């Protein structure tokens, strides 16, 4: 029982990280109509951007986090406006290919600058709190608490602000958004700021939980896609739930299967959903 609860804690931590990525991916998918394959590498970029601030100014990672987020959002917007924007008129699948190229470029730039070894924000081992026989680390509380705060903030943004509502409108029907007079490019820029920023937070959290590595984000891309599909593409709230489910299932699988195969579990779950209910497990959007 205790083991199960411990795995639940790990699953919620991992699920939080996956959710943050999946929610951005789902927003981008809904508005730009292509699966953004460089999303995992935006995680990595965010983690390394924060790493630079940590090393350069010798500050704790949480202080560096906003800078990592801002820089990653900026890079995401720059990539969109220089590359993706030029390809919007053609078929979405060309954007998909371009995003694979961007993924490899981002990863390789990180490798070029920081090498392919592992790095950490803070050396040393964190002593976990012991609570009713469960081990909980400070970082775990930060990751889960931070995710909850961000999800609430995102919810308020999407429901209450003009830009947030316009993002939902574009996700519903981008042609209608255009004839309504919505400034489509401005909304797309906002989408990248939010998607890129959330990806950076996810990457920083992932690096706090594990360590920095040039393919850390790419390795998480499959679970993130699985979460977005589970939640129903283009549905940010579904993506959050999908992320938590994927995180939990991946951790629950570890007593039965080598932990190396965690992504395979996410994949299996995704395939299952695709077979049984391709619109996602929640009330799916009509496609």
């Amino acid at each position: 029982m205790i083991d199960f609860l411990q795995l639940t804690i790990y699953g919620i931590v991992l699920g939080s990280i996956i959710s943050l990525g999946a929610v951005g991916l789902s927003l981008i998918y809904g508005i730009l109509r292509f699966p953004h394959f460089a999303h995992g590498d935006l995680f990595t970029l965010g983690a390394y951007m924060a790493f630079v601030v940590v090393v350069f100014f010798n500050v704790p990672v949480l202080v560096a986090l906003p800078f990592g987020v801002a820089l990653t959002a900026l890079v995401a917007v720059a990539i969109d406006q220089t590359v993706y924007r030029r390809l919007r008129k053609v078929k979405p699948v060309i954007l998909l290919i371009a995003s694979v190229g961007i993924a490899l470029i981002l990863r390789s730039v990180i490798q070029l600058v920081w090498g392919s070894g592992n790095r950490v924000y803070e050396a040393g081992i964190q002593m976990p709190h012991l609570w009713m026989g469960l081990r909980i680390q400070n970082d775990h509380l930060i990751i889960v608490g931070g995710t909850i705060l961000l999800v609430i903030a995102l919810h308020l943004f999407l429901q209450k602000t003009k830009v947030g509502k316009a993002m939902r409108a574009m996700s519903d029907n981008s042609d209608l958004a255009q004839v309504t007079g919505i400034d489509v490019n401005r909304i797309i820029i906002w989408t990248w700021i939010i998607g890129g920023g959330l990806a950076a937070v996810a990457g920083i959290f992932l690096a706090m939980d594990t360590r920095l590595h040039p393919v850390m984000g790419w390795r998480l891309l499959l679970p993130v896609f699985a979460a977005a599909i589970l939640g129903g593409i283009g549905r940010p709230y579904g993506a959050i739930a999908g992320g938590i489910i994927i995180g939990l299932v991946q951790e629950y699988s570890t007593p039965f299967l080598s932990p190396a195969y965690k992504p395979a579990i996410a994949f299996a779950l995704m395939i299952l959903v695709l077979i049984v209910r391709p619109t996602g497990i929640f009330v799916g959007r009509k496609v």
Partner: protein
Amino acid sequence: MLGLIDYAIFSLCIVGIYGLLSLALNIQWGMTGLFNIGIGAFFAIGGYTSGILTSPETTAHVGGFGMPIPVGLLAAMVLSAAIGLLVGLVTLNLRADYLAIATIGIAEIIRLILQNEGWLTGGVRGMANIPRPFEQITGGQFEWAFLVMLIVIIGVVFLALEAARTSAWGRVLRAVRENEPTALASGKDATRFRLEAFVVGCAIMGLAGALYAHLFSFISPEAFEPMLATFLVWVMLIAGGSGNNKGALLGALVIWAIWSGTQILTGYLPAELATRAGALRIILIGVLLIVLLVTRPEGMLSEESDRRRDRRREEREDLKD
């Protein structure tokens, strides 16, 4: 001098293997519009399948059945096709993007298996002593014979694909790609056609993987770095001209030359950066892909150029009649 020729022949063998991959992707993407980002996985399935079946008895991994190479090649194709069939059955009647996502899933799982299942694959140490064809006949100089064999295989695949492209089957694939509702309305089962194209492509990718294994005699997860192989093949097809079989081969040649060229270029880097040269090469190729997509998405030889030629030929034949 002889060394240089040997190097050139060996290089051409590699180009040929990439050419096969590029042709295979052309059936899936160029002709049918199916996005496969797990090329590396099918390549690896082929390589390891043939490796396990044909290598001499060993304790390093399962098998070592010492079977003849043609059996290995055939099995590589069958297994790759079977796995392609499974993936296709699940995803091909869904939105196109789902296939792309499912294929990274396959690539990721194959990568994990290669690394973690030492009993099956030799793990990170890889799989050695895979037999080379014609070694006895040629007394060690097997590359010549290998290249001839490769050219014959590519020739057969190329001619088959060209025939397919201009056949009714190829026309339906194009219709399926361009405007599905019409193809569906004319009573064609689009999903079945897509599945056929996907499976044929996967089989050829498996064949290419097996040939690679027999060329190098050694394979390891590093050699099958799935993303790199996949990405290079994509750049090759797009540079050459997707939808055009000659373009697929030309793209393989040109991009492989550029890819090798970058290796020479990064050779001049100072020693402390040399370990990171690989990353720089990928960046260069990545930028090339993006520039191609933005400026010349139809590639060097466009699909249209081939269709125009076909039309001219048919007009000539009309005149003869």
